[in-house]
């Protein structure tokens, strides 16, 4: 199969959906001529014109305001927020508007919009360009959040998100943009709400997403040499998360490690942990473990940033602890 980078796979999804449905439009800062800060929307302005690829000033609230109003009026906006950290500037529109449109209108109006945004540490970009925002939205019914880890899934999940009638926050990890992978040329969807078992194993389950999936796979590979068989689950959709896949795995392994880049307190994975605790307690052979960022902002200096992020060593230690528990 043909190979594409993660960024180009997203670009192809946008292109194909804009070609299929003239209600789809793209809006954000520098998304037109320049093609976005990370080049993801390149070529769309030339192909679809000013009408459907809208550059805005630095006005995140307005970007989401336009997306909300247009979605309520029947269009299908795809908004780009340059960095996930800036989503605080349009947080109100997402939390108090997008998420509630369907409810407020008593089911007569939907809010089919996608917010694409760039998250994640490891880019030495310091605390205002490195955050991972899932927990900020976890407590808001009405939103979906999707976070692919491969080019194939990036394309399929974005197409599914654009076609979905709910507001979807679509996370793109900045360190994955250049990763290459096989991507079918024709349009296709990957189902929202379904996780994927990336590697099967019987001793413990690692549940994670985005870039941390690769770290987990490396650890799994290494530990298999020592006879520990880890199962690795890529969530792909962060919420609603795929309970079935998670529970099936736990029924088999009885041990769980949750990995996420954001700070530990109030981390998104805590919700998964609590759900497992409530519904799968009798299968557990050891306490559920979290490996997360520290309870600090993400610092700039590579030494500081690396200390902040979950590392291979942290994971290996925790795995050994619960396997021997």
């Amino acid at each position, binding site marked *: 199969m043909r190979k594409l980078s993660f960024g180009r796979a997203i670009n192809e999804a946008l292109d194909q959906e804009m070609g299929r449905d003239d209600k789809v*439009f793209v809006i954000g800062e520098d998304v037109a001529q320049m093609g976005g800060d990370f080049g993801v929307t390149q070529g769309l302005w030339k192909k679809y014109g000013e*009408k459907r690829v809208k550059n*805005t*000033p630095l*006005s995140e*609230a*307005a970007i*989401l*305001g*336009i*997306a*909300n*109003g*247009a*979605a*309520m*009026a*029947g*269009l299908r*906006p795809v908004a780009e927020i340059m960095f996930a950290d800036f989503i605080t500037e349009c947080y*109100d*529109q997402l939390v*108090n*508007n997008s998420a509630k449109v*369907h*409810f*407020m*209108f*008593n*089911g*007569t*109006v*939907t809010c*089919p919009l996608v917010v694409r945004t760039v998250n994640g540490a490891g880019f030495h970009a310091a605390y205002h360009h490195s955050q991972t925002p899932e927990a900020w939205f976890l407590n808001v*019914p*009405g939103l*979906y959040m999707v976070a692919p880890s491969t080019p194939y899934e990036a394309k399929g999940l974005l197409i599914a998100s654009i076609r*979905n*009638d*709910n507001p979807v926050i679509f996370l793109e990890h900045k360190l994955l943009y250049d990763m290459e992978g096989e991507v079918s040329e024709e349009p296709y969807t990957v189902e929202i709400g379904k996780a994927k078992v990336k590697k099967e194993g019987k001793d413990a389950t690692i549940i994670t997403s985005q870039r941390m999936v690769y770290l987990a796979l490396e650890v799994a590979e290494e530990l298999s040499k020592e006879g520990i068989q880890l199962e690795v689950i890529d969530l792909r959709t962060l919420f*609603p998360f795929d309970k079935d896949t998670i529970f099936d795995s736990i029924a088999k392994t009885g041990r769980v490690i949750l990995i996420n880049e954001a700070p530990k307190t109030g981390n998104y994975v805590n919700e998964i942990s609590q759900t497992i605790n409530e519904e799968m307690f009798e299968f557990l052979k050891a306490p559920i473990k979290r490996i997360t960022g520290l309870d600090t902002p993400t610092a700039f200096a590579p030494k500081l940033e690396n200390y902040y992020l979950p590392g291979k060593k942290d994971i290996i230690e925790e795995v050994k602890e619960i396997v021997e528990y």
Partner: protein
Amino acid sequence: MNLSKRVLKELYYNMVLIRDFEDMVDKYAKKGYIPGFIHLSTGQEACQAGVMLTLKETDYKFPDHRSHGVCLLSGTPKERVLAEIFAKKTGISGGRGGSMHILDIKCRNMGFNAIQGANMVTCLGTAFASQYNNTQDVTAVFCGDGTIGRGEVHEGMNIAAKWKLPIIYVLVNNEYAISTRVESVHSYPKNLSDRAWGYCIPNEVIDGNDVIAVYKASAKAVKRARDGEGPTVLELLTYRWQGMFSGDPAAYRPKDEVKIWKEKRCPIKRLREKMISDKIFSAEEVDELNKQSLEEIEGMLKYAIESPEPEPQDALKYIYAGKEVEGR
């Protein structure tokens, strides 16, 4: 431009209807029939009646929190507006929103967003959709003098002007944001809406209790927007007779001030006197309109009171399109 008899009659009737509606809502709120916050627009009827009569059903409307009149005049069955305020299942939003959130996509009432100022960017989206789909529909957004302090106002006006979006900003300047007087917290040249100059948006400052002036200015702004010439800010100078909400004693205002507005500047009395002295309507004809309004209110009230409350499980509906949410 002299307004036709039909237009004058409608303006008058609509103002009276809003007044009667607000008085009735106030009464039933105090009697305990209505839960939650109620913001009354008594005294500001001309702002709503004047603007609404210049709009079509396909135009998008974003009322503010003090806009029962906008919701009544959008085209929604009026009894369902009241039933919503009464927290009934038959309310236009099934009792999910109440007084502050009366929405109806059928007549493009996009509802109030209780995060003040949020609609000042959401309104860009519907206006953009009209432009995108090449329709002539405009978007009218209501906003108070206090709310103009929100950052969204700046983001919104800048883009609306640059993209020439078909928006009518209805800035209802009633001098107060809760207890805070407008000039005590805002800096502006002469008028609050003169800020629009900074965005190259024309503004007009109008006596908001002169419904004819409001109607004419709004008609002009609507035409400008339909013709693709972009947004206008209408600053309507008015005053709320009631406190911030039904039951607020509004001790922060001088009593004389309220008295002057009530006695000397009532928008309804003003039009009534004009229509009679200009011999457009006789006093009897005007009285008949007042009577009709009360009858209409009676009908709505009966419907709202007799309607059932929502089922608790209705709260689980329409969280997501195409996905159920777990109940208790």
